[in-house]
């Protein structure tokens, strides 16, 4: 079963045009223009407070925007209500703090949305969920509660939960930042595999190894602006702006 429906790669799937956002006096997103094509793996890097996470969260409207336009698969992002819910169902999201539902088992975490939102048959949803949990390597934990799992396991469940909705695009908002170091790789491995399967991905991360290995394109943000977009090789070897050179020199010296 392919995770990604395989029609016409290269079509624009996520389009942000002239997106602006303020938090009070703070101008957090300044004229963001970004297109992510189908099948593309985009990695967003930049210093803390540069607006990476905020931009990621605007794509499924967990953050509203002040002006500009966001389109998913050609359709403008709805303001609220049913249309917004059904759009969110097509955009998978993985959070820094996992956010597994604390009152549900691992299996129920994965089947909840397919059953409630997609009206999938319960048995079928459980088969799908077990298949996905197996892929991310936590099938044996299916009947446990989230608090009984390690951070790395929880985050892999969170990925399976998002995949169960068969999303068109996956958003990763610093998925490894809350993990103990020895658990980072088990999550990144799942993400790399997903990238190789052709999933369209937008990843906000500080994992430069992952960025080099899996990214088709690196977006560098600082102070709410996109300063550079380039292939991983070009970006890491020949950064264009001083901000990017400064950022890279600070994180790549060790």
């Amino acid at each position, binding site marked *: 079963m392919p995770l990604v429906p395989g029609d016409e790669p290269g079509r624009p799937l996520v389009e942000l045009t002239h997106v602006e956002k303020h938090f009070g006096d703070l101008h957090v997103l300044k004229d963001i223009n970004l297109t992510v094509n189908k099948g593309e793996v985009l990695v967003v890097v930049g210093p803390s407070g540069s607006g990476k996470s905020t931009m990621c969260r605007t794509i499924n409207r967990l953050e509203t925007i002040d002006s500009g336009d966001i389109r998913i698969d050609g359709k403008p992002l709805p303001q609220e209500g*049913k249309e917004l819910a059904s759009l969110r169902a097509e*955009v998978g999201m993985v959070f820094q703090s996992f956010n597994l*539902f604390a*009152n549900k088992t691992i299996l129920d975490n994965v089947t909840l*949305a397919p059953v409630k939102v997609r009206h999938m048959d319960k048995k079928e949803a459980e088969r799908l969920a077990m298949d996905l949990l197996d892929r991310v390597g936590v099938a044996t934990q299916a009947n446990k509660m989230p608090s009984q799992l390690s951070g790395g396991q929880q985050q892999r469940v*969170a990925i399976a939960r998002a995949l169960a909705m068969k999303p068109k695009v996956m958003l990763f908002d610093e998925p490894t930042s809350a993990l103990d170091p020895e658990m980072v790789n088990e999550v990144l491995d799942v993400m790399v595999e997903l990238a190789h399967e052709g999933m369209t991905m937008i990843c906000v991360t500080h994992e430069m190894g992952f960025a080099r290995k899996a990214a088709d394109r690196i977006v560098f943000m600082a102070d709410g602006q996109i300063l550079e977009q380039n292939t991983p090789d070009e970006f890491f070897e020949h950064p264009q702006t001083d901000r990017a050179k400064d950022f890279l020199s600070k994180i790549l010296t060790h």
Partner: protein
Amino acid sequence: MNGFMQLLQTYDVLGAFLVNIELTLWSALFSTVLGVILVMMRISPISSLRAVAGAYVELFKNLPLTIIMVFMVLGAYAQLKLSFSDTFATNFFWLAVTGLSLYTAAFVCESLRSGINTVPIGQAEAARALGLNFMQAATQIILPQAFRGSVAPLGNTLIALLKNSTVAAAASVSTETSSLMSEMIEFRPDVIVQIFLIFALGYVILIIPIGMLTTYLSNKLAVRR
């Protein structure tokens, strides 16, 4: 000791306590239903619903219960012709339950809201991100966790409700404990201390297990994160 036995034989103390327990159970049921509706309105994305629920809670939280109970009889029944039954006692029983429920619902709502505050915002965000609508997120994720996080304040609300059920006397429920106590004091002023002790001990015996149960459930049901 003789005084106690005489009192318990002459007056239906147990029956009076049963009336208060009945008032409490019905009011607990209705105030929980209303309280859940109110708290869902308070966290809903629709601002007018939030405002209505907020106004309700502020109004009923700040009104003395006696005033609500007197209004149920003199206002709701006598003026607005709200009537539950042609039987005098049944009618005033349900008027008292209505008053208690309306009043207690405000506190149930506040208790649940404190429980909702224990649910991390990420839980709601994850639900929304998966495409669940507000009702689905509320009933599947937020409220179940909020209930489990608000066992202690809900237990306190239940204890307050049981004690408040004595105010039903103000709604002309003449068979409940405080009415019976007044009656007993009127006819047996010679054993006033015993009368007082009977009712004090009766409530202590009823309420201590509620407190123990809520403490136990509060730990048992706590959401592990």
